[in-house]
């Protein structure tokens, strides 16, 4: 494709010409159609005061964008000279593509003069802004994009439909992507006529353009008017000058490039919007330029391809030259990239059938990288600037806030939720890219809920979500699960909500460059590479593809970033010295990223092609097959297990009995080559196109379905044995490239085994949550590390001494000895077999040899039994009678007599010895299992595990819960984390232990078990002591250091949980829900009742929190120092929490929107009630008094006792 691009075929030229032509006209068009013009410029004008048009634009702005959009549409409908049309549409697209590729040069040629390199300082921000916006647009565009493409490709008739479709599909779902792909093909066809290469690039460009437009349209429709102006500006800025110009021209002059207009007609503004950032720059910097261009005859457009390119170049140069221009340049790139990603999504979704699609992917990848890394920061800052200019004073304050260091994810999320202003939302949406990923992981539930609930926000968020999903498989899965859970509530209004669509998009595994597409591409690319000289475009495409091959572009971001960007910048426009680019004058926080670009520039170009070629080779399907075959031959022993020789390469995903249920068939990381590469430090990439998400999905599905089946079992015992059985089957499929999602981000790992015996069904009335202990191997990167080979139970240690002695001795005797030699090597086998005349050729049979080689080490523990058997042939049973065990019992021989009393005493001593654990009770198997100290359990399991000897072996545990909605627990987890963070920031020594929650659907999930804990109920039941007595027993004397430490821990944790319980009104606080860990900390679990919900709503538990006299006793009584400390902690904690109450509130508030969670049953009053509990208006003294009364109430609460009593009678909980 690249090659195609490189070839300037006449046809290719043609479309670009249109584009270019249109570009020049664009300004003129503005003239003819004042309204449009206004709209076009509206963005610009909005930014700065400008000609009359600008004023009109402002006007629009002032109005709601929606209105504008409506107007535009209507106007557009009128305006678009439909006839002009299909071609033009395609042309425009081409243009955009071309422009992407070629803008730079063209700009140089024509525009340089126009756009004074000396970018006006004010303009820069706008430019930057455009960039930032562009990504957002793209994001929004995604859905629309495909259609836009289609229209472009197919022609005008479609256009109208398209628009409708857009509305319908406004969502970003995978469907769209599919459409995109098909459309992409369509687009191609026309383009193919010209030349494939050009097409590809063009297609990408087109797509982006179209997307932008469509997005724009969507945004218009869906969102407020606010967006429009922005969009406009963006569009202008976004497309390289050429495109924008062209488009403008089209729009303006119906006669010229009517097609685009017709398509976009409703979207006139959108048409203008599509302009790439460069155009924005231009436009913003000098509208005069634009006007000039517009004034230029449309005819120029024909030539424009070149011109545009030159212009683009110029623009770039200018940008580069101007101090600010650097940032702008990078920004532009970023914007493009941003736009592209959206295109990518679509194309990827399409399965990259079309070259264009694949190319897009590549491009998008590049762009994505740019946007994400370097440009995002820049963009955000730019945006800020823009916002400043745009927004009124108040808003500028807001902007200042946004720019400040204080602005963090929490604020971003909360403003995203609260602020309905599209500009702000846009800004934040872009700004998100610069936030640390861990933060976005944390706020994922909020993001998802907003995504699902609010369409506008979804549009803003989409790019970011997609970006993250690409980046991180773990994240994307979590995202999909959450989307599933949250869409479940709202699914009824829309058949297919955008949330569901995003989920499907993620689950369809399209958020990565599709391998097939790449394959196709690669083939094409090869051709092109061979034939043509690489143009910028080609390079861009190439780069992405290599990157994309390995995995999702996102994942690859870091490396590609450096390499790709340079190429882009450097290629044709190498004229401008890379060093020129200084760090952005704007002084972006992330400036460090930006500078990296220039420095890299020089090298990459040469590197890139080779890279691509390599990727091609890899991607060749036959090649991979060959590789596999090779590897299987070379390391036959290992491989044969995973891919049985029977040739059943069938995909067994999800079939637990197959033993390869979690094997997606990808051998890319397990092949010899991959291992070598990883040893050499090269990144290994998967190029087989196997579904990446499927194994983990299947794994989780298997765990959940076990839970569901357990629920059907009548008795606890039946459940237990069922669990055992299910897990043992599950084990057959392990090790595999699966992981526990809860711990995967902290410590990437692969699951190798789930010891069935260790798993336990937990107590629950009708559901069957269960805890599993999972043996995992830590790996560096769970996506690329090779999967551990299955190991059998190694019984080496049981091998007895006599067998060791015997086996070698018997070797000489006969061929049978072969079996006996413990260290069988291939040679040994040969010799052994050779001696047997009867089976001379047995070695030659592949099965046998491979068997021997593979199993060579298995022999050693296999042999003794057989060897023993054969040994007996030789020397009949001289040692037979001495069993292995006899050796152990030597000591007993020395004694000849024993007193019966002695035996009896010892028996009772050992049996009655105090046990650390609880006795195993078939009715409550979990108690014993949970009581066992974690370390002991780890050691025990490690000892019996065949993988225990591996250094990276770890034990993880997880509770799998079916039939419960864990979203509320998830919220509680977030709240706890937030409290924890607040208190640690404020240096209040309160202790909390949030436990992680994974929501898989609205009725299943996983919970992180807290190890080394016991519930107060279990303690009381087993020890029959009061808490203080238990503390004394566990930790020692009252004045011992251990006790004091434990007491301090107790107080700090107790105070923390009291506050939490009070603020978020956690109910159902019986002793079964309160744990004590082995350091004295108290830990509350089960946040099923909080905020506005309580058990049965009986009004039980009226006390603010659970603080029984017994607990106070542990602190030393109400008059003790520790109790005073407790109260101080309460006060400090509450004050700290109050200070940051917004963080807490925003978490809750966002989740409350559209939520059906029980804790929001009280509806709108939940958040105010929560806020009121922070007592913001109270003075410190008042607060203290209030807290004292709370403590008093809690200690003396009647309802607490009542509730405990109720729990005792109803559930037997002490």
């Amino acid at each position, binding site marked *: 494709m690249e090659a195609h691009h490189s070839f300037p075929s006449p046809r290719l030229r043609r479309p670009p010409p249109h584009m270019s032509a249109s570009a020049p006209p664009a300004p003129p068009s503005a003239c003819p159609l004042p309204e449009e013009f206004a709209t076009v410029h509206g963005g610009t004008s909005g930014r700065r005061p400008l000609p009359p048009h600008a004023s009109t634009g402002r006007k629009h702005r002032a109005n709601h964008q929606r209105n504008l959009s409506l107007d535009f549409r209507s106007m557009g409908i009128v305006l678009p000279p439909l006839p002009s049309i299909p071609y033009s549409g395609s042309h425009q697209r081409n243009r955009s593509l071309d422009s992407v590729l070629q803008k730079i040069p063209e700009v140089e040629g024509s525009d340089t003069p126009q756009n004074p390199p000396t970018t006006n300082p004010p303009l820069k921000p706008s430019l930057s802004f455009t960039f930032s916006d562009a990504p957002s647009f793209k994001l929004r565009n995604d859905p629309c994009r495909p259609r836009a493409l289609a229209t472009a490709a197919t022609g005008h008739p479609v256009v109208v439909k398209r628009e409708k479709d857009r509305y319908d599909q406004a969502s970003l779902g995978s469907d769209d992507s599919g459409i995109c792909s098909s459309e992409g093909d369509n687009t191609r066809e026309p383009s193919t006529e010209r030349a494939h290469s050009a097409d590809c690039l063009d297609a990408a460009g087109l797509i982006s353009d179209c997307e932008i437009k469509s997005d724009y349209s969507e945004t218009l429709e869906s969102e407020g008017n606010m967006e429009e102006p922005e969009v406009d500006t963006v569009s202008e800025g976004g497309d390289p000058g050429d495109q924008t110009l062209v488009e403008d021209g089209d729009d303006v002059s119906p006669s010229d490039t009517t097609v685009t207009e017709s398509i976009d007609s409703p979207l006139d503004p959108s048409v203008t919007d599509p302009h790439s950032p460069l155009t924005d720059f231009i436009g913003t910097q000098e509208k005069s330029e634009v006007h000039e261009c517009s004034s230029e005859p449309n005819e120029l457009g024909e030539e424009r391809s070149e011109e545009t390119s030159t212009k683009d170049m110029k623009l770039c140069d200018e940008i580069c030259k101007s101090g600010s221009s650097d940032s702008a340049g990078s920004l532009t790139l970023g914007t493009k990239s941003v736009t592209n990603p959206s295109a990518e999504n679509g194309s990827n979704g399409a399965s990259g059938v079309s070259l264009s699609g694949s190319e897009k992917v590549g491009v998008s990848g590049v762009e994505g990288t740019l946007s994400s890394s370097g440009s995002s920061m820049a963009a955000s800052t730019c945006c800020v600037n823009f916002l400043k200019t745009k927004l009124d004073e108040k808003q500028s304050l807001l902007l200042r806030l946004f720019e400040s260091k204080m602005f963090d994810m929490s604020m971003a999320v909360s403003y995203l939720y609260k602020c309905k202003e599209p500009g702000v939302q846009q800004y934040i949406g872009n700004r998100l890219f610069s936030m640390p990923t861990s933060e976005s992981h944390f706020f994922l539930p909020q993001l998802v809920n907003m995504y699902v609930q609010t369409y506008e926000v979804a549009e803003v968020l989409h790019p970011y979500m997609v970006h993250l999903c690409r980046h991180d498989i773990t994240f994307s899965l979590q995202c999909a699960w959450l989307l599933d859970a949250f869409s479940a509530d709202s699914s009824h209004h829309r058949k297919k909500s955008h949330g569901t669509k995003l989920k499907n998009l993620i689950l369809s595994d399209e958020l990565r460059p599709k391998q097939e597409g790449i394959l196709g591409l690669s083939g094409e690319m090869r051709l092109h590479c061979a034939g043509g000289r690489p143009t910028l475009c080609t390079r861009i495409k190439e780069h992405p593809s290599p990157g994309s091959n390995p995995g999702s572009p996102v994942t690859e971001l870091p490396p590609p970033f450096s390499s790709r960007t340079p190429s882009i910048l450097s290629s044709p426009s190498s004229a401008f010295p890379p060093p020129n680019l200084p760090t952005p004058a704007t002084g972006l926080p992330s400036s460090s990223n930006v500078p990296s670009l220039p420095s890299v520039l020089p090298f990459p170009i040469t590197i890139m092609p080779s890279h691509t070629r390599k990727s091609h080779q890899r991607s060749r399907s036959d090649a991979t097959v060959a590789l596999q075959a090779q590897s299987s031959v070379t390391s036959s022993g290992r491989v044969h297990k995973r891919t049985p020789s*029977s040739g*059943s390469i069938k995909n067994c995903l999800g079939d637990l*009995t*197959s*033993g390869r249920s979690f094997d997606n068939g990808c051998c890319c990381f397990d092949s010899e080559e991959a291992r070598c590469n990883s040893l050499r430090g090269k990144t290994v990439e998967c190029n087989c196109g196997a579904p990446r998400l499927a194994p983990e999905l299947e794994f989780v599905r298997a765990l959940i379905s076990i839970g569901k089946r357990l629920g*059907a079992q009548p008795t606890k*015992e*039946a459940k*237990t*044995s*069922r669990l*055992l*059985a*299910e897990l*043992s*089957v599950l084990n*057959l499929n392990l090790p595999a490239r699966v992981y526990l999602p809860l711990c995967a981000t902290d410590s990437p790992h692969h699951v190798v085994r789930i010891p*069935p015996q260790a798993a336990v069904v937990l107590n629950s009335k009708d559901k069957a949550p269960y805890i599993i202990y999972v043996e995992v191997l830590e790996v560096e990167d769970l996506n690329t590390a090779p999967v551990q080979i*299955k190991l*059998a139970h190694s*019984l080496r240690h*049981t091998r007895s001494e006599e067998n060791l002695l015997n086996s070698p001795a018997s070797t000489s005797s006969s*061929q*049978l000895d*072969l*079996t006996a030699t413990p260290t069988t090597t291939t040679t040994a086998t040969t010799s052994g077999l050779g001696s*047997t005349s*009867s*089976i*001379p*050729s*047995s070695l030659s*049979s592949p*099965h046998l040899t491979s068997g021997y080689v593979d*199993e060579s080490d298995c*022999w050693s523990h*296999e042999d003794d*039994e*057989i060897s*023993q*058997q054969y040994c*007996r042939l030789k020397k009949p*049973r001289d040692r*037979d*009678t001495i*069993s*292995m*065990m*006899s050796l152990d*019992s030597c000591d*007993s*021989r020395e004694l000849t007599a*024993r007193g*019966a009393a002695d*035996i*009896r005493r010892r*028996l009772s001593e050992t*049996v009655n010895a105090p046990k650390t654990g609880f006795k195993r009770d*078939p009715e409550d198997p979990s108690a014993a299992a949970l009581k066992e100290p974690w370390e002991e359990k780890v050691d025990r399991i490690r000892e*019996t595990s065949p993988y225990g000897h591996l250094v990276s072996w770890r034990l993880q545990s997880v509770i799998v819960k079916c039939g419960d909605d864990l979203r509320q627990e998830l919220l509680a987890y977030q709240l706890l984390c937030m409290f924890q963070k607040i208190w640690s920031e404020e240096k209040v020594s309160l202790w909390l232990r949030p436990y992680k929650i994974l929501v898989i659907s609205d009725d299943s999930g996983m919970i992180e078990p807290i190890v080394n804990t016991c519930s107060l109920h279990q303690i009381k039941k087993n020890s029959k002591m009061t808490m203080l007595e238990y503390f004394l027993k566990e930790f020692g004397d009252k004045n011992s250091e251990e006790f004091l430490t434990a007491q301090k821990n107790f107080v700090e944790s107790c105070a923390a949980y009291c506050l939490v319980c009070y603020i978020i009104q956690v109910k159902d606080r019986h002793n079964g829900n309160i744990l004590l860990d082995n350091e004295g900390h108290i830990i509350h679990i089960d946040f099923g009742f909080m905020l506005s919900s309580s058990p049965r709503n009986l009004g039980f538990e009226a006390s603010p929190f659970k603080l029984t006299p017994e607990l106070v006793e542990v602190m030393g009584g109400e008059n003790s120092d520790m109790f005073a400390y407790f109260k101080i902690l309460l006060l400090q904690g509450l004050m700290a929490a109050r200070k940051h109450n917004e963080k807490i509130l925003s978490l809750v508030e966002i989740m409350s929107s559209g939520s059906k969670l029980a804790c929001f049953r009280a509806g709108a009053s939940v958040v105010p009630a929560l806020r009121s509990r922070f007592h913001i208006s109270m003075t410190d003294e008042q607060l203290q008094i209030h807290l004292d009364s709370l403590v008093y109430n809690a200690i003396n609460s009647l309802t607490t006792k009542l509730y405990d009593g109720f729990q005792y009678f109803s559930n037997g909980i002490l």
Partner: protein
Amino acid sequence: MGSKLKPGGVRRHLKEKVVQMYEDLFHGTDPCVNNARFWDDLFLLKPKMSAMEGEISRCSSEQLVGLKENINTLFAKCVQTLAHQHNIRVVNALLTLCSLVRALYRKMQGDYGFDFINILIGFDAAEEQMQLLLNHCSNFLTGEYCDSLKSLSLKFLLVLATGTDNISQNTVLEYLTINCNFDAVIQLLSHSSTRGQHGPEAVLYLMLMVNYRKHEMTNPYTVNISLLDDELLLNGYGQVITASLADFNHKYSSHFMEPQGSGWFASLTSMVGSMFLSEEMATRNEHIKANDSFLLALYEAVHLNRNFITALTTATDPSTPPSPANTLDRSATPPPPATTPDTPQTPSSTQAPPQVSVEMEASVQPTNLLVTFLEYCSIVMQDTKTEESLNNVKLCFIIVTCISEDQYCNLLLHDANLVFTVPLHRLPMRHRKPPPDRTPHARPLACAVLDVMVEFMMSHMMKKLPVELFVQSVSIIHRLLCYQKRNSVRLPYNWKELWAALIALAKFLVTNEAYLAKKMNIFQLAHQIMNIFNLFITYGDTFLSTPSSYDELYYEIMRMHQVFENLYSMSLRYARTDGDYKESAQRLTNSLGNVRSIINHFTPKLDKWSQEHGISTLTEEQVLEVVRNNYDSLTLKLHDSLDQYEKYSERPNHSTFFANMVRSILSDTRQSIDFTAFENLSILQELGNST
């Protein structure tokens, strides 16, 4: 020549063409003389196996020698045709091969050796041809071929393997060891679909081949099966066995639950009469016999392969809904084991009445091989009347012995977290009251093993004492106890039942000594029993779960002290007189020392106590109290090597047993290989379609 025997030309005309061709073939002349396309045509036609076999059976050995050329060519052509792209021809060729080989084997009965190979293939070509042939078979088995072809290849292999009564004398199998197709066959077990279709035959074939000269040479099948460590394959292997055994169990239980839906055991007891109906016994025995091959396969796996142990406790197929049929893992095997088409199926046993299945559904637990096998044991051992059934039980017990000797398996058996409910069946007997009607708790599997052994002892104290089985069962118990002692495993088992059974057995031996001692060495058995008691007495502290159970042991001994005293006097008698059993009797006498000192120690104490309290008969509580208070002055003798046992070894003790077992399985299998499915046209058409 055969055609000469046929009466007239009229009938000749009615002959099918293929039969005509067979006749031409076995005339001794080159068939191509008359028909140049003879071979082409031959494999186009559906073979008529009976006709071919008839032709051959009519030939005398000399005639066959004369026909060597033609037969060799036929064989070569068949092999050649296997490479043909049309499956129909391939199937025809394979069928022709099957009937040819089968008929020749029949003809050569008792006259094996080179002649057979020579006549069939010809010496010079034999190696090459066989290699080709077997490679084709392996291809069919592993490649993407239709199921009927796979199945036919397997059947052909079985025909080869079952040619002679003594498998070790089957020289053709030499080629099968040279071109070992172990991997190809075992891969069939890896996936449930192929396993369902071909599993039983694959396992059967492997089992037979493992037994081919297993003691005389390095048999690659033996080696491979002992090395197999692919959990999936091992599991598949186990599943095939489980399926077959579970099927039997299911039929058995549904049959005996039929009369009343009320209760499992209640219905059992009511079946006392009908149970012994001879015809029912006959069908039952047929079923048991059909399972012999799988038992033997289980034995080979347990005996040869340590990795197989994990498969013993891996659940079979939990993903299927809990209907009885499915939980018994018959989902994979649509029809009952394909190798037993000849087993008559009584209508009563094939279908479980609906109410039964409903009832079972609630109680059905995920099962595994070991659970199924133990249940099977409990059924099989109910009948030891015939030699055959005795052998069955013996095989079962050998397997359990192997299991109880394995370290890792013991670990699994005793794992407190690895609990299962094993439905054990008890022979209804008049002198026993029906067991409590409750579903047993899930317990570690060792408990189930002990239960089976206890049940066996309690139900087989008969005049024709199966002493070998008793020795086996006691030694199994011994092995488990040794493991427990060594590893301080305190199994939650009600040892009282075991003690009672052992004492009852001792009592039976003593009372029937006069009769039994003439026929068998009862002293060895008694010695084993006493060893177990000594283990409890002297090492009880290491593996008993509660102190009170140690008291109960003494109580049991005291309660039954008469038995031990009689046993002692009997052993003394034999030890003092020179006889066959002198040595054993002396050992027995020795081993009784501890029990005697216990009796001597506590008897006066008990007497004293009853005198003091003026009670003539003491209650259990009272005895226990005396016991508890009077341990002090009692000293026990530690016996050497109480926890040692002779490790199980197939040779030399059991080699003939297994040889006979294989022989009988072989002849059964030979008769049951069934080609009717391939002789009907539809299959061939389907074949044609699939190409």
